């Protein structure tokens, strides 16, 4: 994985010193809260409902054991013993004190981590496929380019006061596990007719109160032009994006109001002026970054994996966990292990400091010292030898981390909701907890099969409800929490935005409604039909009738 050189260390350390000075100027009153706000936001520090919240960047979700141990230390020392992994592959701490934050950032800097640009109207942490480098379907490791973009965008002098926040995602595989169509810029690696690898550039996707699917503005961008093209997009957006209305300030609104073709023409015009210049990405530089992401030293002589097969046959729970949580690595004899942070009844994405320490140890022993955070708020060990899988599973089980539900109904994405967030209209976490308790039976989960349930506590859609098979949106109705349900959303290459099914449900009734939808799906699906396929085939009516009774004419 990427390792800081002196250059990276200097920038992060200077940033810590700079923020320490800014905090002291705020504490002394030299800076007003209004003046301090953009400074703390550019260092990931929000003022939430009860306390400050610090969001720490995990570039493209990749962590070393040493780094996650530090995250555990921070949870113990500065927080209440846990952290929350987010849909953008970051981690959030909900209870730090302002005066502690400089020390906390210094601790992070000691393991090559920071909170730079995890909030504010700037280019945010760049996300990538959580299976990058190990997926058997990828063209190239997307983290190479995510790291290049991370460096280019860090403390960018021109793009630190954009009209609104700006999110970039990179996918190196045709199966989109990075939701590139729901980012301000999505970069989808493609091969051109000459067999060269480059990027399809998508712009203007996003969720929030106005969900929009990104549109392609360039079918193929050569790698060497990546940064100049990004600069052209950002410059056009910085100058033309709306600044009169915070709800219309994202690039998706600019692209929509300008029209895709005209927007693309503006970008191309600026790009043609600057391409081939200082931002040209040379092969040497790509290779330098690539070397950091070289595959680990896999055991090349395949051991017979009979032990693993025998264990699967002998141990039903292990077998079930393998079926849902393990996928094949492109290296024969190895698997990609997903560790669920969604045990029944718990807050999705939360991990205790002790669990983080266990994850660090297991990554060290079983996965070349490396972990990834997924946009579904789980953890991935990318390089686990099948031979050791049963032993790994036993240790996960002992730590309460062996929930076998990846991609299943209880693998719920949820935002922090009204329990933490001052934007929320309704609670998200308790709804997720109640659904996961309702669907805690492993046989039932397996029978239902793959299902995305996503919950947001307000229209800002941090819980990605627009792209759930079943999306749940918390709304406030005269001081009471209600939940609007959408069906048919899809964040992948089959991209779709969910449709509202009908009147919202109360907090008490929403879990029953979800159960009704799932039961209806189970009744009407054909063999092996996914929820999305069933939805596309039958549409809204059967679900609506079950939920609200037959339509009256």
């Amino acid at each position, binding site marked *: 994985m990427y390792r800081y050189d002196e250059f990276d260390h200097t920038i992060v350390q200077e940033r810590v010193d700079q923020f320490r000075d800014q905090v002291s100027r705020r504490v002394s009153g030299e800076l007003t809260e209004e003046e301090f706000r953009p400074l703390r936001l550019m260092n990931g520090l929000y003022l939430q409902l009860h306390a400050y919240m610090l969001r720490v960047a995990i570039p493209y979700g990749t962590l070393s054991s040493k780094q996650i141990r530090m995250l555990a230390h921070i949870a113990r020392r500065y927080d209440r013993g846990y952290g929350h992994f987010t849909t953008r592959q970051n981690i959030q701490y909900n209870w730090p004190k302002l005066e502690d934050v400089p020390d906390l950032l210094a601790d992070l800097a000691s393991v090559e981590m920071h909170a730079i640009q995890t909030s504010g109207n700037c280019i945010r942490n760049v996300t990538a496929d959580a299976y990058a480098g190990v997926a058997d379907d990828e063209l190239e490791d997307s983290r190479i380019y995510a790291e290049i973009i991370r460096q280019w965008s860090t403390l960018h002098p021109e793009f630190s006061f954009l009209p609104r926040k700006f999110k970039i995602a990179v996918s190196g595989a045709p199966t989109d596990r990075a939701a590139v169509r729901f980012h301000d810029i999505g970069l989808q690696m493609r091969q051109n007719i000459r067999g060269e690898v480059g990027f399809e550039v998508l712009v203007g996707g996003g969720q929030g109160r106005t969900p929009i699917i990104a549109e392609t503005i360039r079918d193929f961008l050569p790698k060497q032009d990546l940064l100049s093209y990004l600069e052209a997009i950002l410059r056009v957006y910085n100058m033309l994006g709306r600044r009169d209305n915070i709800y219309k300030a994202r690039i998706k609104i600019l692209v929509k109001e300008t029209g895709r073709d005209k927007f693309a023409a503006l970008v191309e015009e600026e790009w043609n002026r600057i391409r081939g210049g200082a931002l040209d990405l040379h092969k040497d*530089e790509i290779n330098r970054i690539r070397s950091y992401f070289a595959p680990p030293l896999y055991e090349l002589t395949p051991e017979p994996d009979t032990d693993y097969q025998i264990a699967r046959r002998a141990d039903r729970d292990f077998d079930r966990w393998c079926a849902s949580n393990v996928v094949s690595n492109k290296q024969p004899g190895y698997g990609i292990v997903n560790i669920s942070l969604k045990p029944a009844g718990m807050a999705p994405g939360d991990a205790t400091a002790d669990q983080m320490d266990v994850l660090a140890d297991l990554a060290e022993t079983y996965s070349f010292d490396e972990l990834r955070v997924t946009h579904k708020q789980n953890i991935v060990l990318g390089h686990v030898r099948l031979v050791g899988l049963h032993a790994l599973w036993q240790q996960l089980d002992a730590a309460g981390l062996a929930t076998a539900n990846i991609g299943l109904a209880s693998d719920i994405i949820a935002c922090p909701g009204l329990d933490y967030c001052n934007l929320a209209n309704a609670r998200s976490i308790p709804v997720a907890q109640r659904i996961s308790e309702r669907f805690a039976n492993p046989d039932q989960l397996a029978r239902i099969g793959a299902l995305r349930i996503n919950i947001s506590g307000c229209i800002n859609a941090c819980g990605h409800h627009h792209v759930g098979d079943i999306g749940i949106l918390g709304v406030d109705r005269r001081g009471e929490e209600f939940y609007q349900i959408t069906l048919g959303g899809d964040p992948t290459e089959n991209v779709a935005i969910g449709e509202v099914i009908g009147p919202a449900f109360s907090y008490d009734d929403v879990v029953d409604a979800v159960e009704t939808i799932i039961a209806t799906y189970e009744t009407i699906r054909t063999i092996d039909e996914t929820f999305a396929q069933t939805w596309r085939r039958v549409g809204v009516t059967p679900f609506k009738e079950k939920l609200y009774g037959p339509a009256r004419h």
Partner: protein
Amino acid sequence: MALLVTNKVIKDQWHILEDDAQIDGGDNMIVSVERWQRDRDDLIACNRDLGIVLKSDQPPNLIEKDIQRFSVICLEFPKFTDGRAYSYARLLRNKYGFKGELRAVGNVLRDQLAFMLRCGIDAFEIADNVNARDWSSAFGEITVRYQGANDIANIVRPNIIPPHNDVAGNWSY
């Protein structure tokens, strides 16, 4: 207002010619885009040094043909969160080759100075009561750069180009 240029507070040699004021023949007038568009020929006929203010919704292409006529271009930041002028500065330096003074005016804060400098802005209108030495130190807080802008051309990595640690007052276009 004080003017911070190359780490020093200096006396401002320019004055604003209001839109309704008579062209007074005095030296070093700064005019608005509206005034320029209205009285361009008269202003040129004065044969004086001229400056112009670009408001944050007035991109440089509005004065594209005349850019070299100005010695000073003021870029207005109505709120520090309005970052359009960072791009205007880069266009003025890179696209239009403007070599005169680029001056940040309006809500110019200490913690934005280094970003402005890197985009090619080289003069900063700041409140009279600020500590100029403290403000100048803002230029040197971050000494390494991940990306080229107006101060340095390339992405600077130690193993590609030698480390580049200059601060305000020592940059080139």
